[in-house]
């Protein structure tokens, strides 16, 4: 007869065995059975009321890793495929009828939205990307100016085989070196959507058609490179609808105000010489604004502190002999910054979209006044705000020389 204790011991022994074998495949998936989505695009489908979802899925075997027997440089390492559905989720699931590998969203970097679709509002398509556990909140939202998202996803880069990698490279360069893109990703976008007195902003991208005569030689013999992608500023939203665009200087103006300028080149006219320019490299920048209410009117004071180095000078300058030029260059630099800021503000006011969050700041400073006076009529009020700009521009160094090379005639 088997004793009670022996039975209990056997049962205890069975527990780990059962645990290890009976867990099923709740989310076990071998890495090679997954389709890694690196970018996704949303457009209107041809059928009324449906959404067209386009995804760019990586083809690992074409990357050329491993023994080098799989991938060839001629094969595209990605696959762009579209599906439709009434909701994004349905469209995602419908992808399964075309893709033998289940799309996996954790490595998605971009949500691209076609301009037409963006103008009708994108709030509904973003829900899945924050509700789903796989997708990340650190996804860039890109609006394709004058194009469909599916077309933008077909673009390629000369220097990167994987287009989303190329786009990431452009974005990093634009953020760190030019300050001409918005810094906001999906989580910021959603916060701005929800916030009072603030409107969302996204990255603006355009397709640059490849010149016909362009010929690719050497190893790269890809049949069809449709076009390339270029980042050209920011897309301005009002609530969740696209209402307009900021070009590059305006976008930098926006970044001055929000304090997001990291670097960039400021070009000023050379003091005392027509047609010659000086390039200044931004080193550090701080930006802050303060909305105030005076006699029922809102005035915003924008304070910007910027430091720059002299990068290059056209013509001859001897800073050792004429130090007064230094101050005059700083004044010109301040003017350029002020103009950019004012241009951004003017554009935003024209579009009626408070992308800077002046209203939100006002709310933070004086919630009662905001609730009683401005909340309901902020849209009109924003258009009439008076913006004062104070720029403190400082030039630090002039490179390795004080005196330009003099060209003898």
């Amino acid at each position, binding site marked *: 007869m088997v004793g009670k*204790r*022996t039975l*209990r*011991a056997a049962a*205890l*022994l069975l527990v780990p065995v059962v*645990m*290890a*074998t009976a*867990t099923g495949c709740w*989310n*076990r*998936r*071998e*890495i*090679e059975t*997954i389709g*890694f989505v*690196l970018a996704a695009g949303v457009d209107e489908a041809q059928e009324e009321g449906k959404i067209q979802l386009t995804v760019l899925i*990586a083809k*690992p*075997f074409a*990357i*050329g*890793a*491993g*023994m080098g027997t*799989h*991938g060839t440089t001629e094969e595209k390492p990605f696959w762009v495929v579209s599906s439709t559905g009434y909701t994004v989720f349905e469209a995602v699931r419908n992808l399964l009828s075309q893709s033998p590998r289940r799309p*996996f969203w*954790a*490595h998605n*970097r971009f949500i691209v939205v076609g301009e037409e679709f963006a103008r009708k509002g994108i709030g509904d398509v973003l829900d899945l990307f924050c509700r789903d556990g*796989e997708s*990340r909140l650190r996804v860039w939202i890109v609006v394709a100016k004058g194009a469909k998202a599916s077309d933008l996803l077909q673009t390629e880069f000369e220097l990167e085989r994987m287009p989303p*990698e190329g786009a990431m490279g452009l974005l990093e360069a634009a953020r760190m070196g030019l300050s001409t893109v918005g810094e906001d990703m999906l989580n910021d976008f959603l916060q701005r959507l929800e916030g009072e007195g603030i409107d969302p902003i996204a990255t603006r991208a355009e397709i640059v058609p490849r010149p016909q005569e362009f010929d690719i030689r050497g190893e790269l013999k890809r049949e069809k490179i449709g076009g390339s992608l270029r980042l050209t500023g920011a897309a301005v939203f009002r609530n969740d609808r696209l209402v307009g665009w900021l070009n590059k200087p305006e976008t930098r103006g926006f970044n001055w105000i929000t304090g997001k300028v990291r670097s960039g080149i400021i070009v000023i006219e050379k003091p005392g010489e027509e047609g010659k320019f000086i390039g200044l490299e931004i080193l550090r920048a701080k930006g802050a604004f303060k909305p105030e209410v005076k006699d029922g009117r809102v005035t915003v004071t924008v304070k910007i502190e910027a430091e720059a180095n002299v990068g290059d000078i056209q013509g001859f300058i001897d800073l050792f002999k004429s130090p007064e030029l230094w101050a005059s260059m700083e004044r010109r630099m301040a003017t350029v910054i002020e103009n950019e800021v004012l241009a951004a503000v003017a554009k935003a006011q024209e579009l009626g979209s408070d992308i800077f969050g002046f209203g939100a700041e006002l709310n933070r400073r004086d919630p009662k006044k905001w609730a009683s006076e401005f909340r309901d009529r902020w849209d009109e009020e924003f258009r009439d705000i008076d913006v004062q700009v104070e720029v403190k521009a400082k030039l630090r160094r002039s490179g390795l020389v004080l005196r330009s090379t003099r060209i003898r005639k």
Partner: protein
Amino acid sequence: MLGMLRRLLSRRMRRRQGSGQAETSSVEGRISSKLPVNRERIKAAFGNSADLVLRNLQAGAQGKISALVVHMDGLVDKRQVAEAVIEQITDIDLKWDNPRQAYADLKVRLLSASGVEEVDSLDKFITHVAGGHSGVLIDGVEKGLVCDTRGWEQRGIDEPTTEATVRGPKEGFVEALRTNTSLLRRRIMGSQLWIEEMRIGRISRTRVAIAHIAGVANDKIVQEVRDRLRRIDVDAIHESGNIEEYIEDAPFSLFPTTLRTERPDKVTGALLEGRVAILTDGTPFVLIVPATFTMFLTSTEDYYERYFIGSALRLLRVASFFISLTLPSLYVAVTTFHQEMLPTPLVLSIAAQREGIPFPAVIEALLMEFVFETLREAGVRLPRVVGQAVSIIGALVIGDAAIRAGLASPAMIMVVAFTGIASFATPVFSLAIGVRLLRFLMTVLAGALGLFGIVAGMFALLIHLTCLRSFGVPFLEPLAPIVFSDLKDALLRAPWWALRTRPQFTGKKAPTRQAPGLRPRPPSPEEEEVHHLVGEEGGK
């Protein structure tokens, strides 16, 4: 669950107790006064063994005194037997014809040989002879003399093969117990080094020595070691590993709770921390108790190289301990459950490598681990010349053929190979092998549950480790329970001048081991002045 197993086993063992045990024959009785009787009894006791040498000698007046010299061939130093025993017998003064007088005379003369003992039980006599002593019996005397003439072939002191170091003594223990105790004695000249000996094994009569430093070691621990050793009642002790299994605290754990070493400097270091060493005749491996986890990740070299090098090496070993335990399981978990955790280029690269591999990652990992372990085992056991061939084939099989055959991905080979190397970085083999077994378990857990499985496994392991004791000392001391003063010599090694106190659990009896303030520092101004003056005077 282990407790259950233990209970089952112990019940079975209890049942067995009381049943007959192999009778070990021993010769009863006292030494007879009649020489031929003794001779026959000795012969019978050894079953007329071929290496038993019995020599009859006639001495004294007209050769009236007949004597018998007994020794084992090969165990005695023949020159010593000839000079110290046989010559002394034949030199017995011619005037003696009384056996008792001759015996008394001989007893005094034989003292010139080292270690003479008088025995009256035949059993004792035979035991000594079996141990390499020479026995002398004289007809008409019911007592015997045994003198220490031991001397046999033994391996010379050599560099320890399993614990090589770059810096530090190159001496290792050998198989002979006395040589081993001398190696300790030479390092600790103070009389505080106490070595007591006992014999374990009814048939093997193996000599086992317990060494400790009087006044430093905890008496309770020493007594506990004595008690546990005395408990061992077996036929034979073949190696210190046998003793280990009879005295360890956690016989069902994968982790050893005694530390084995063949380095005398490691033993003396441990002794001076208040630990106890158990030396077994016939093996170069000495056991150190109590043993704690951090000791297994320690090499003596840590104490000889400068402290930051020692500390860095220890951290490296800690890292490689965790790597050898978890790397394959982490790889399996991340590639089959948590693909979002890897950077995009890496995940795509791994996916590309796994393209066309027929097995799931967990099977691939287990398979390659199995191949690796087989190769390792084959390489250890085979003769050195053949072993090399095996490792070449192994490298080819593992490194290249498996990938070409599409059985494994390069990343997996990389993981398995690195894990293998990391497991070799653990200085003590007995810990490394336990970790190796656990690694398979972790890989299965990771394959079934992902990181959750690994976390569960690590928790179970941690609970187990914190429960372990080695002779009353918590196995994870000083990490759990945390003992701040001992942390200076655990995962890091503080400079020697900062290692003032002995470990709390073993060295409380004599808490400090050096004077305070030994850190080298520049001379104080007064001192400097003195130096200066001395210098000037010297100049005059």
